């Protein structure tokens, strides 16, 4: 056992050191920085207690609430869309059809496209004058949209661009679905139930652990969206897509207010923790684990 401890630590040392140097250390440093007015271009840095946090919540910085609102709107729109569509697509892929592998490849492929390239493609698709989307709408005699360039449509448009990359969520759902034993469905067949009772009584309860995993990962990811904001919109028009992490980056790296940006980062961390905690807490009532008490 002693031998085990020594070797165990030896093998995991790089990872543990990495955690201390690149995660724990910066985390503590970030908390400390958030209590200062550190600015790259200022001679002096002083300890200012919770002033950064007061500045955020007192409304002195109206962009804080703005970016929070934008991000919440995005999360509320995106998480259900990603989850519902991914689940539906996974259900389709789980059918016993010819060419399943090909469909799976096609649906996964967009999620490996670099964010910058994906952004370019979508900017061009969503071009108000010459883009494909407006031409398509035109064919059906529907009015075009200004997509990323109008205050009302910018966030739904960004959500739409990210839906192109749902591939890995779909594949994880698919893995969950394929783990359901066939005998369960046969039992419903015997009882004379149709596809709806299969979905309602077998598929959905059995897939809840996967649903739980995907929901948490999608929430965490959606709160941290940055590339889309930076490349597609730069926060515009009129700050309507001022995503939280984009605002944080701008405060820290463009406006060089790194103390303040660190405070922003900690609030984001707390928000993400809170959401994860809520999902965890409620999961007891809706996540079904094999062998658990709930049928």
């Amino acid at each position: 056992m002693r031998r085990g401890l020594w070797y165990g630590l030896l093998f995991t040392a790089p990872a543990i050191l990495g955690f201390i140097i690149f995660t724990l250390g910066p985390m503590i440093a970030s908390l400390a920085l958030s209590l200062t007015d550190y600015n790259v271009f200022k001679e002096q840095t002083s300890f200012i207690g919770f002033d950064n946090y007061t500045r955020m919540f007192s409304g002195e910085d109206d962009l804080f609430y703005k970016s929070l609102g934008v991000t919440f709107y995005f999360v509320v729109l995106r998480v259900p869309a990603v989850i519902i569509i991914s689940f539906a697509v996974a259900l389709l892929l789980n059918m016993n059809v010819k060419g399943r592998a090909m469909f799976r490849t096609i649906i996964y492929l967009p999620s490996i496209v670099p964010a910058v390239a994906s952004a370019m493609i979508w900017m061009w698709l969503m071009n108000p004058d010459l883009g494909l989307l407006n031409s398509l709408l035109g064919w059906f005699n529907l009015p075009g949209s200004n997509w990323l360039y109008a205050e009302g449509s910018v966030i739904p448009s960004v959500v739409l661009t990210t839906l192109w990359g749902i591939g890995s969520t779909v594949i994880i759902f698919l893995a969950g679905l394929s783990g359901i034993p066939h005998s369960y469905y046969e039992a419903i067949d015997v009882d004379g139930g149709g596809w709806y009772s299969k979905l309602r009584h077998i598929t959905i309860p059995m897939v809840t652990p996967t649903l739980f995993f995907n929901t948490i990962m999608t929430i965490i990811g959606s709160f941290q969206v940055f590339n889309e904001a930076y490349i597609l919109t730069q926060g515009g028009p009129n700050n309507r897509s001022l995503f939280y992490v984009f605002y944080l980056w701008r405060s820290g790296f463009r406006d060089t207010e790194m103390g303040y940006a660190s405070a922003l980062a900690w609030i984001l961390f707390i928000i993400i923790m809170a959401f994860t905690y809520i999902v965890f807490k409620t999961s007891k009532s809706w996540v079904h684990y094999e062998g658990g008490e709930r049928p």
Partner: protein
Amino acid sequence: MRQSKLALGAGYSALILISILFIIPFIWLLRSSLMNLSQIFTMPPEWIPAPFQWDNFRRALTVLPFDVFFTNTMIIVLSVLVGTVATSSIAAFGFSRIQWKGRDTVFAILMTSMMLPFAVTMIPSFLGWKMLGFYDTFYPLIVPAYFGGGIFNIFLLRQFYLTIPRDFDEAAVVDGASYFQIYWKIIFPLSRSALIVVALFSFLGSWNDFMGPLIYLKSDKLFTLALGLQMFQGSYTAQWDLLMAASAAVVLPCVIVFLIGQRYFLEGITLTGLKG
């Protein structure tokens, strides 16, 4: 599961429709990258380039030094890949095949970093690298990969290592093998497919990384393809032919890598999702 013909037909049609929707952006990208500007701007849009403007690619890739960006990207991507595969597999071995006190607690603590937003560590890390004089070099993008290669990869490999029967190690221990020999002679070769998954994720992750290079690289000559493409977009706003050609050139290597390794990809994602 029995399926009625009707349901199967409806599902099949839905799949085809969804696949078309997913593939249209690629087609739009390709067709735009091979057209001249006047054809791009015709309304209603045309799908087949006439003539095929292959020259777009040459022009797009020479307006900016994309060869330099490509070399930079490859240096970063390959260095990160080697570090990730080596150190994440060693750590995963320590977290799964060796019994030691506190092992699972330490692993659980490391796992919490998956929930930590990168925004929290971003600023202090940046200041740290800058203080050491490594701002505007590749080091901040590469070195962290040599310290565990990311908890996600350790998690993925650990999941895989846990499925390998214990008897293998025990037999080796009886034969007097050390942990290093067990790792190198038994576990490493057995986990080939999982390691390929990690290598592929690592490749795509650093190839696609945008925020890292954006924060740490300042000189044009150190830019990666992602940064170069973004710079291109800034300076050639309405040149959709060239922009699409440059984008296609950046997307292509990813598509090739994916198509070659897709079996492993799907396995790997499945492996991470199974333990929800």
